[in-house]
């Protein structure tokens, strides 16, 4: 899987690359408008991470270029502006997702995974994880052909874990994933425990392995 990161903040790009490379992603990097334009028009990527404020030009015109060339690359806008107008404009121009800075690496990884999954039509939209299979379309989960009934939040958590296998996910990142933007309005994210506990219990009842580990003091990890 090839990912292009269009972003001028070197340190942030390095972090993203570091977080993503251990998955089967191959990351490329363009730090300015010119390089980005060249890379975008000559290569195909599974996913492009696009910062809107670039030296040398507006990130939105890169989106325009992609659309003109009829390219199918998935695009996630990364923006420090966090403005509704940019979001709407970007999504209208054909971006697939929008993530406001600052974000958790785990959230970015989950978004990339979900985007790539949506773009792959051959997989029948079924994710298989050992005896577990998830039908993205109908949002149903089965273990060894037996259905597992999950709430919407438990289902979201499951996907988030699978998108961040072998990574420690902090409570904050989980809460932000479940509640969205306003999770930081609260200091208490204990509700995350309850959802994770229920998810673990339901998977266990379906005789699925106990992959979700609690990491003392920091959060959880899907170990495999």
């Amino acid at each position, binding site marked *: 899987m090839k990912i292009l990161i269009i972003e001028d903040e070197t*340190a942030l790009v390095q972090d993203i690359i*570091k*977080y993503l490379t251990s998955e089967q992603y191959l990351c490329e990097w363009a730090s300015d408008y010119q390089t980005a334009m060249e890379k975008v028009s000559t290569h195909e990527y599974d996913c492009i991470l696009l910062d809107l404020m670039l030296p040398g030009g507006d990130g939105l015109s890169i989106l325009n270029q992609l659309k003109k060339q009829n390219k199918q690359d998935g695009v996630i806008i990364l923006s420090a502006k966090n403005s509704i107008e940019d979001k709407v404009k970007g999504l209208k121009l054909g971006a697939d997702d929008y993530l406001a800075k600052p974000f958790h690496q785990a959230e970015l990884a989950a978004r990339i995974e979900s985007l790539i999954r949506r773009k792959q039509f051959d997989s029948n939209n079924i994710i298989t994880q050992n005896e577990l299979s998830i039908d993205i379309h109908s949002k149903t989960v089965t273990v060894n052909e037996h259905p597992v009934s999950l709430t919407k939040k438990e289902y979201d958590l499951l996907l988030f874990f699978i998108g961040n296998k072998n990574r420690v996910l902090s409570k*904050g990142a989980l809460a932000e994933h479940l509640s969205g933007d306003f999770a930081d*309005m609260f*200091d*208490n994210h204990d509700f995350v425990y309850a959802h994770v506990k229920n998810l673990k219990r339901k998977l266990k009842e379906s005789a699925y392995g106990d992959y979700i580990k609690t990491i003392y003091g*920091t959060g959880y990890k899907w170990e495999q």
Partner: protein
Amino acid sequence: MTKLLNRPLKAFAFYALVILLISVPVYVLVVDHIWISELDENNWLTLQHTKERLETGVFTREDLEQINHIWGELLPGVSITKTNEAAIRPDSVYEILRPHEYDTDDGAGRFRGLVSYLNINEQPYQITIETNVEEADETLLAIAIVTFFFFILLIVGFILLNRRISARSWRPFYQTLHSLQSFDLNKDDNLHLPPTDIQEFQELNQSLHLLVKNNIAAYQQQKTFTENASHELQTPIALLKSKLDLLLQEKEITPEIAEILSGIEAPLSRLSRINKNLLLLAKVENQQYSDKEQLDIKEYVGAALILFEDYLNNKNLFVRNCIQDSILINTNSFLLETLLHNLLSNAIRHTSDGGQIRIELQNRTIFIANSGKQALDEKHLFDRFSSTSKDKISSGLGLAIIKEIVLKNNWQVRYHFDNGFHTFAVSF
């Protein structure tokens, strides 16, 4: 408080009254003096004429008695009587009050007389000439009435003139005053003052223009500064967050390090929140959310409650949502959402476990109430960073944002505490 133009009017009216009051006795004295000197002159002329004729003519004693008798019948003001040598004195003038012969209603009349002596046929005679003078009190009354009439005329004139002056010359002043009263640093980018041909007002307007211009510039600078500063802070915060995420992935994290790491996460999250809110505040102030549409409050409250479900359940809060009817308001959806999220998250954060939250909608006013113990300090409640609680997560900007949104939409927000409930009411 008196109006500027009424103050000189009062002073003018008072001054006019004093002057006119003084003028009345002066007029009376002057008129009386003229009267009397004219009469005295007239009496003297008559006397001279009469004396000359009497002295040059030849009259017997009987003739004289006859003349005096005829005078007494025809001209009661003149009389001639016989006297003796000893009584002769120089000519004198006298004044007497006695009833009129004909005008009896008028009471006593005032008479001015001239007494003189002359010899006819070697005999001393006394001749008296008397004329009726206007009484001093009648003069006084007439002059007082006339003066009063003119005083009224003067006051009416003052008032009318004053109105004209105020309508004309002071118009630019009142327009300037009106412009200043309706000027709002939050909304207006310029102060519009009417042109004037009066120098003082022109100078006043110029000074005001300069003052307001500097204020607007300073205010703009402050807003841009906030926006720029929070923009600049975004990237380092994003970096801190991503570094922390990477750090968590390290293999050898001891429980001690884990504790420190989670201790970093909370303040970092708060920093991020403050920064986000500062940026939001600056954007609301800069009118960056101006798209408006018809939105249903009921729907938005319902959606927000679903979003906050986890936090409500976690604290065992009981929510009573009494909103039944849909109410449409015309506003920006993001701002309405932010307003409701801020109000509700405040209510959730500040209610202790097992507490109650009540949401009501009456006459286009939404009431969001949560149980609590002590009333908050209303005065600084909506100021930035005036947070009354020691809440570690609060950005201190939630209520400031609410106030700004309310202000931009011309709504109203009030707080009151009663029966153990903090209530925030927003009137749309």
